[in-house]
């Protein structure tokens, strides 16, 4: 087995030399990646390492930073969970049913990617305030959405929904009806079939979609800041807002310290998603 793998690797290495352009593309890729991404990000790291541990600890445990982190993480988590539910429903509807406006719904899913976040932000905040629709009716029954946690979650549902739909949809398309039929013939009910047959197949894609939506939610700025109210007292500031505020007050030490922690959080999310994807591909290769 190992001998075969080594042989295959060698063959691939060999193939690599047949097609010209290795040096050129490697040069362009590494140079541009370094200039535009790696060196700027490293500048944050270098600066934040010049802070002493006590300074760092003071910044991170200050009221505004602590609660903003909590708000961002909790709201992103809840929004990503809600997106998983609606994402599966949407993906399922789009894959399994043919209906008149299917193309329209399918085409609109990416709207949150196409619509600038600031536009989404001001619109959602107006819609869900007590003068807009549906905010008027929601506040009549005592649900204030704009300028509360609910507002943050609503905005994050908006920006996150395409991630879940677009990761689940292709998996559903490839899913074989046979297993469902078999489960049905063996006497399984529909919900039982969904839970025990379909859901396990969807789980890796769903986790990836969840991770993408969650990561996007934690870093989200434009669509959230108008609807969130940004009150330190009511803990409706998100973490990106706090960084921006520190930047505006020229508090670079504070901004980089918070950014460092955010970088670590997104690195952990990225890493766990990569590990899950690797496990997924290993599983599908074994089948």
């Amino acid at each position: 087995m190992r001998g075969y793998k080594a042989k295959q690797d060698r063959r691939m290495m060999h193939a690599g030399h047949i097609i010209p352009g290795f040096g050129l593309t490697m040069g362009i890729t590494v140079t541009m990646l370094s200039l535009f991404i790696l060196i700027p990000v490293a500048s944050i790291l270098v600066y934040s390492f010049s802070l002493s541990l006590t300074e760092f600890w003071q910044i991170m445990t200050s009221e505004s930073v602590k609660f903003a982190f909590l708000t961002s993480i909790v709201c992103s988590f809840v929004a990503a969970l809600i997106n998983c539910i609606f994402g599966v429903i949407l993906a399922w509807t789009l894959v399994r049913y043919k209906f008149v406006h299917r193309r329209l719904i399918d085409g609109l899913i990416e709207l949150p990617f196409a619509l600038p976040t600031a536009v989404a932000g001001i619109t959602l905040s107006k819609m869900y305030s007590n003068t807009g629709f549906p905010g008027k009716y929601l506040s009549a029954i005592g649900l204030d959405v704009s300028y509360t946690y609910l507002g943050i979650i609503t905005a994050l549902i908006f920006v996150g929904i395409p991630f879940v739909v677009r990761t689940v949809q292709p998996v559903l398309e490839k899913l074989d009806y046979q297993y469902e039929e078999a489960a049905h013939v063996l006497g399984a009910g529909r919900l039982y079939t969904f839970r025990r047959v379909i859901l396990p197949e969807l789980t890796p894609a769903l986790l990836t979609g969840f991770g993408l939506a969650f990561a996007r939610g934690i870093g989200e700025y434009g669509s959230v800041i108008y609807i969130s109210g940004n009150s330190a007292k009511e803990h409706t500031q998100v973490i990106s807002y706090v960084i921006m505020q520190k930047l505006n007050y020229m508090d670079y030490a504070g901004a980089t310290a918070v950014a460092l922690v955010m970088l670590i959080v997104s690195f952990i999310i990225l890493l766990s998603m990569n590990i899950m994807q690797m496990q997924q591909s290993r599983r599908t290769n074994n089948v």
Partner: protein
Amino acid sequence: MYSKKSFRKPMIIISTLFVSLMLILPLLSVIVNSLSKGWEFYVKSISTTNVMSAIRLTLFVTLITVGVNTVFGLAAAWLLTRYSFKGKQVLATLIDIPFSISPVIAGLAFIMMFGRMGWAAPIVDAVNSITGWNIKIVFAIPGVVLATIFVTFPFVSREIIPVLNSVGTDEEEAAALMGAGGFKIFKKITFPHIRWALAYGVVLCTARAIGEFGAVNALSKTRGKTFTLPLEIDALYMAGSADSIVEAYAASSVLVIFAVILLIARNVLEYKTNHVNSLLKEKNVKD
């Protein structure tokens, strides 16, 4: 035959409601709000000098960003799919960094690099004093361009890589063995396979570049000079008077029109990609 008839209706209704409430309503809401003071007010508010300058700058920044990303995307996709080398997985992960980083952190990164206390500021000063130029990066147009490139960096390569992976390297290897040079191989063999994926990547990149807010917000402070359209919308909205809020919606409606055009382009391209792929398959079968 195993059917899910009884679930069909509720699923379609839930999906339709979700899309109408979360995606279509915000679009309509922008348009309705932008016209709430009449057509003349609308035309007047999108033709102010600030808005016009913002539209021009937005298009300029988008053009440069798309150019840079196309060069990088082609090089990186070629490198990551045509050769195998050590550290390939790491490189692929590094390219995806901007996906999981808050745009505000992207802005912060360039401030920490080129800003007053940034380590690269003396380099820029030295270049300026030698050449007599007056290059400014932070709080000037170059900073806006850099930040936009940062947040859109993986968009093009990410669309091309899966296509190149599925096409395989047989044709290119054959061409190389028969003596074709790298650029000829790219033009005659690779490009026809990836042109729709490239166009799709460019559409996504354009959408994000036009709408980027957080990263640019950190790096741009002069209204009428370095403000892109989303920043101008923010300024109008934050001014807070009834008139300026309607003006903000009017400027937003310009971005909504862009978003809808890009969304349609996306759907046409998706159709083309599928269409071309199925034609390719037929051709391969016939050959």
